[in-house]
Each structure stands twice: as C-alpha cells, then as structure tokens.
C-alpha cells in the first residue's frame, strides 16, 4: 500500500523541500507510527521542528482525506491504502 503525504506551512523544508510525497508502506501503521516513519526515513533536517518527544511538535495539524485527524481517532487512526495525509504547520504571519 502507499499513502500520499502533503507538507505545508514550511514543513516541506524539512523533507527536502518536497510538498508532496508518495510513501510506500509494507504494513498498516497508525498515524502515530507513520509520524515516526516519516521522521526516521524521510526527514532531512531539524527534527525538533517536526517532533517534540514522541509526538508532533505543537502547532502542527494533521488532516486525513480532508478531515481533521481529531475526527478520525487521531494518533490511533490506522492509515489506509491511498489515504491523503496532510501535515500543516499553522501560520502566524500576516
């Protein structure tokens, strides 16, 4: 299976400036596990701008197929084949 990952709000800078990634997965992962997977295998730089302890750092929202992950079980949501998962860093500028 594979999932479509999108980064925005500046997070793409941590992943080799890629706003979109197709990530193959050999087994089903929860979102929590997916975050670690991305950090371990795809993150290029400055992990502290992505994670804080064993979670995403504050200020990042995750959206699963156009929905807030809070509405899908958050960390425990089991990622499905061809899911679109967006990691968005909230912007404060204006």
């Amino acid at each position, binding site marked *: 299976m594979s999932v479509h990952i999108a980064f925005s709000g*500046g997070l793409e800078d941590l992943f080799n400036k890629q706003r979109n990634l197709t990530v193959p997965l050999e087994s089903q992962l929860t979102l929590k596990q997916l975050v670690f997977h991305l950090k371990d295998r795809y993150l290029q730089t400055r992990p502290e701008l992505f994670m804080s302890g064993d979670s995403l750092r504050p*200020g990042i929202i995750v959206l699963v197929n*156009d*929905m807030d992950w809070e509405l899908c079980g958050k960390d425990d949501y089991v990622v499905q084949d061809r899911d679109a998962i*967006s990691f*968005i860093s*909230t912007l*404060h*500028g*204006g």
Partner: protein
Amino acid sequence: MVEAELSPAEIERYHRQILLREFGLEGQKKLKSAKVLVIGAGGLGSPLLLYLAGAGIGTIGIVDGDVVETINLHRQIIHSSNNLKINKAESARRLLQELNPEIKLEIYTQWLTGESSASIVPGYDIIVIATDNVESRYLISDLGVYYKKPVISGSALRWEGQLTVFSPSPCIRCLFPQPTPRHAWSKASDIGVLGPIPGVIGTLQAIETIKLILGLPVLSRKLLMYDGLSCQFKLFQLRDTSPTCPACSGQINPHTFNYAEFLGQIPAIPSI
C-alpha cells in the same frame, strides 16, 4: 439591534451588491448596523479594511501600534510613501475615509494587550485577526470566546495562506492547545512573504465577515489552505469544541492571562 436606514447616496453607492439575491436593502442595512474590529492594518489588514469599508460596514475599529515603513509597501497597499512614520491605523483611516465617507472609523493607535482590550472589544460584534504574530492570535481568540464574538482568523507567509472562523468556538486553543514552540516561529522578516498572498487571505476575510453579518454560512470548523505557487486551495473539516479547552470552558480571562509565560518568553517587540 436598531436597524439603520439607508440614504439615497448609500443606496447608490452600494447598488451593485444590493442587487444580489442574498443581499438586498435588508442586507445592506445589516452591514450598516454592524461593528467590526480589525486588529492589524498591515498585509492582511490592507485589502480587508478596503473591502469592508467599500462594502459599507457601518463601524470599523482598527487597532495597530506600528508605523508605516517603506519595507511594508510591497504588501501593505493601504499605506503609501507619503505616510511613512505615520501610525498604521491612522494611515489606513485616511484612505478608507476617502474611499467611503459614509462609514465610521474608530482607530486605536496602540498594540492590543490584555489590558487595553477591555475597553475596546466589547463595543464590536465581530473581531478579525489581521496580525503577524502568535501572541496576538491567542489573545484575540480568547477575547472572542470571553465576549462571545466570532473571530475571523487569517494568516499568510511566503507563498501560503490559511483562513478559518472561530465562531468563537471551537477556538484557537481547541486546535492548538499548546502554541508553536518559539524555536519554530517563522516571520516574514526572516523567511519572506509575497505581497498579494496576504492580499488573497485578507480579501477572503472580508468576504467571510460580510457573509457572517448577512447570516450566510461561513468557514466555521473549516480550514482553508492556500498555496499561491500552485494556485491550489483546499478545504478541510475541523474538530468541534474541545471538552478540555480552557478558554471554551470559561477558565481563561484574557485581560489577566499571562500570555508571555504561556508562550515561553518575555513579550517580544512585534515585527514589522
């Protein structure tokens, strides 16, 4: 609310929007009776204020403690090279009054703080976040919850923008109970912003404000993400009010809350 009457001059001025089915004279009267507080007369505030004034919002409050500088003018189109060193709320007021002499503009040439907001916010119906820093966003969202007023929140940086409406709940703390850590803060002065990007978001904020006043559906519990490089817009469904949100459960008084401590810093001088 006593509904305002429209003069013949106003009916002429607003004719092209009065024609809209969702508007009519009744809609225009609602706009005239409305009081909207805009915090920030910069990148987001420039188009937002111009379109709110153009549309005939009866009373617009503008809060900004900054002064106009040349480095603003690539995006803060409400100001000009003739207004350098003038307070931004005052500079905005000048152009807005020329665009629309019919409306009332109330300016506050200061930074919004927990203390100063007590005498400002209650007089308005809707609050619009048009600032460029994280501290003000939590303060304004908390004020919205505290005074039960909807908050229209926009932001922009580099080529991207974001927009949502806190009605006032769910609020910013429902989404982000912990603020972005200081080491992850990004500012236009460091990483840049393309001028028309806050232009798009500020203009969309004006539209959401108008729809709210007219009683039309707005982006409550929805997040709009905009990427100017690809010209892509995405709408996401957001969570409902968090049962553990300290603001929405009434535990936060924005006039006394220690935002500096919450954000882990002594108060920063807001950037340009």
